[in-house]
């Protein structure tokens, strides 16, 4: 079947999308082989499809994904003004205040002190379970390697009771414990604030 240039142009899309029957396809190919103009149109149209189908053509503005995510987050119900939201805010404030308090208490130790053993355990939660050894002068966290059996039988009590009985905190285990607690509270406070 012999076809004209105009017929080829009208079928170019269908030809490129494989939507022409075999006899028309053969006719188009035969025509194009001998027609420079139709070859140019066919090649050019194929290139158009290839170029525009490439993902690299459209570039989204920088930060587009981030701004979209933020807009969605702002829009989501439950993010603002709910009881849950207020609860989180209050908890965050509480944790933050506790952290600041701990940090302040640690920083406010008299600089003239020569021995931390003399400190009566500032900043230590009074309900914290600690261990004391009979003849010892320190109280410890369970597992502390500085509890000596030679000091007598080990007893368990709260930090408040230990302080009342004249025991002072072990700077090794309780110092480390307080430092870890302060870090943990600080991290939790930031995590909640950033929610």
């Amino acid at each position, binding site marked *: 079947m012999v076809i004209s240039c105009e017929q080829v142009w009208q079928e170019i899309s269908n030809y490129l999308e494989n939507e022409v029957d075999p006899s028309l396809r053969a006719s188009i190919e035969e025509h194009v082989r001998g027609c420079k103009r139709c070859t140019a*149109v066919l090649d050019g149209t194929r290139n158009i499809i290839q170029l525009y189908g490439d993902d690299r053509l459209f570039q989204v503005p920088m930060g587009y994904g981030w701004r979209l995510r933020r807009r969605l987050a702002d829009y989501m119900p439950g993010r603002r003004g709910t009881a849950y939201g207020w609860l989180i805010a209050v908890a965050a404030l509480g944790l933050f205040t506790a952290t600041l308090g701990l940090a302040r208490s640690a920083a406010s130790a008299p600089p003239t002190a020569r021995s931390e053993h003399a400190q009566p355990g500032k900043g230590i939660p009074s309900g914290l379970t600690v261990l004391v050894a009979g003849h010892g002068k320190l109280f410890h966290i369970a597992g502390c390697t500085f509890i000596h059996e030679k000091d007598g039988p080990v007893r368990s009590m709260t930090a408040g009771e230990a302080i009342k009985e004249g025991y002072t905190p072990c700077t090794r285990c309780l110092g480390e414990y307080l430092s870890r607690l302060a870090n943990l509270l600080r991290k939790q406070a930031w995590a909640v604030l950033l929610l």
Partner: protein
Amino acid sequence: MAMLEGASSVDRLAPKVDAHEESLIRRIQNGEQELFYELVKPHERRVYTAAFAILRNPADAEEVAQEAMLKAFTHLKQFRAEARFSTWLIQIAVNEARMRLRKDHSEVMEPIGERQDDEGTYTPREFADWRELPSEALERSEIRQLLLEALASLKSKYREVFVLRDIHHLSIEEVAAILEISRASVKTRLLRARLMLRDFLAPRVAAGWFGREPFQKGNKPW
């Protein structure tokens, strides 16, 4: 709502929602709203591109893309898994962009195309040889700019069809459903869009525009 009127025609298409997407949609519909971004993240680029193709302005396109996402979030319960989620999203973006155009009366800025009507057949006018297609062409910003310029020169009815079909690779049926036109109209407009773009770009290619190497110090062209 206008946005959802076209959804009925899209919903008639074959179900193509993948299992993960379907699971996410169900969880969001059941209250896990924070998962919505995970659901739309794979499609955020396509939504932007659809809006940009219609509005031809990055700032407007981004705003419309955001609005489309918010509408999708609000109306997610109305989404029926009878169509692809991405198609549904793009349809919302297209409708939003069209509304923005109408609102801004931007249609008056449409290119004047004496040859851009549906009547009669379209006759190519440029026959420059364009056999070669450098694979690195799109890595050059001036070429991307030229292609965008060519796309912007089309009237919106051609541009929309071309973008949905040749850039987003939607099926002819999906394009017809989104734009609420017949399958035959999609094919006619698509052919014209492709030929017009070829007419726009071929002479520049023939002039060596795509193939020219950038001038480099110490590498004189003579």
